[in-house]
């Protein structure tokens, strides 16, 4: 390899050349003083640029950028962090414990249903569970309430026969 062939390979980054190119370049540099000097200059320049970029990056303040990114992430997306407020707490509870939260919500509803059915069933056993309307042209009806049902009496005939 001559200097013209070695020139494109000078200043390459570590791992950029394949083993064959590295071997050829190394053989050329061992015999060519100008190319070794050129290689040393390029390596020095690379270190200077690298150090400069790192220093420039260190001087920059990225806190505003980081805050902007964090603001765009909704609070509810944070796994493990409850959403603010009572409603957020309920939402968080439902999200984490769906079955338990649903069962907890159903318990009072089922209790109310059971109470309604119980009242509906037992209300049919009282003695006054009927409604009576009686009309008579010339007698005086009387209604007796018993636990088995109503008794309607109309009395005695007015002629007494």
């Amino acid at each position, binding site marked *: 390899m001559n200097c013209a062939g070695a020139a494109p390979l000078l200043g390459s980054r570590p791992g950029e050349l394949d083993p064959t190119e590295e071997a050829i370049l190394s053989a050329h540099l061992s015999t060519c003083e100008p190319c070794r000097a050129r290689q040393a200059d390029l390596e020095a320049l690379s270190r200077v640029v690298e150090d400069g970029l790192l220093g420039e990056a260190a001087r920059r303040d990225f806190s505003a950028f980081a805050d902007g990114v964090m603001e765009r992430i909704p609070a509810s997306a944070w796994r493990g962090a409850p959403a603010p407020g009572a409603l957020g707490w309920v939402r968080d509870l439902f999200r984490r414990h769906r079955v338990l939260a649903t069962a907890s919500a159903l318990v009072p509803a089922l209790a109310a249903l059971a109470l309604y059915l119980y009242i509906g069933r037992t209300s049919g056993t009282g003695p006054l569970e009927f409604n009576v309307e009686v009309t008579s042209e010339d007698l005086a*009806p009387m209604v007796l309430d018993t636990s088995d049902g109503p*008794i309607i*009496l109309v009395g005695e005939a007015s002629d007494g026969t």
Partner: protein
Amino acid sequence: MRSARTAAWGAVAALLLASTAAEAAEAPLPVRIRVLQGSRQGTPGVPPGLEDLRGQLSSTAYLRWEQAGEVQASMLPRKPVSVALPGGESVTVTLVESRSGAATFEVSAPASRTQSRVTVAPGKRIVQQVTAERGGSAWFVTIRAGG
């Protein structure tokens, strides 16, 4: 499109419910009607066939009871059933309305010129005097919904 389909299904469900409720309201109701004579005189007693009525009958001033007739019918709303009394008179019983928790009957007794409208729960009995008392006795009908 989705809301229209939901509304259509809702309308179908409402129609089915309404038709089921109407069908239940128009279903025949087995009713047992008995004709009794109550007397103030004679040996006090309730025959074995009237044991289920003892609680109600003993609440009256009549001491001796006898059954004179019985009608068992599957009554439909607004279809009157005529029940004959031994003296040639009759009583008309009409099922006005039947629901799951109650049945309403109208009893018309021309002999005493009395009309009643009674709503009772299933299993309860209506005991109604349908003639004025004459000579210490009177006629009664008992009505029990559910046979």
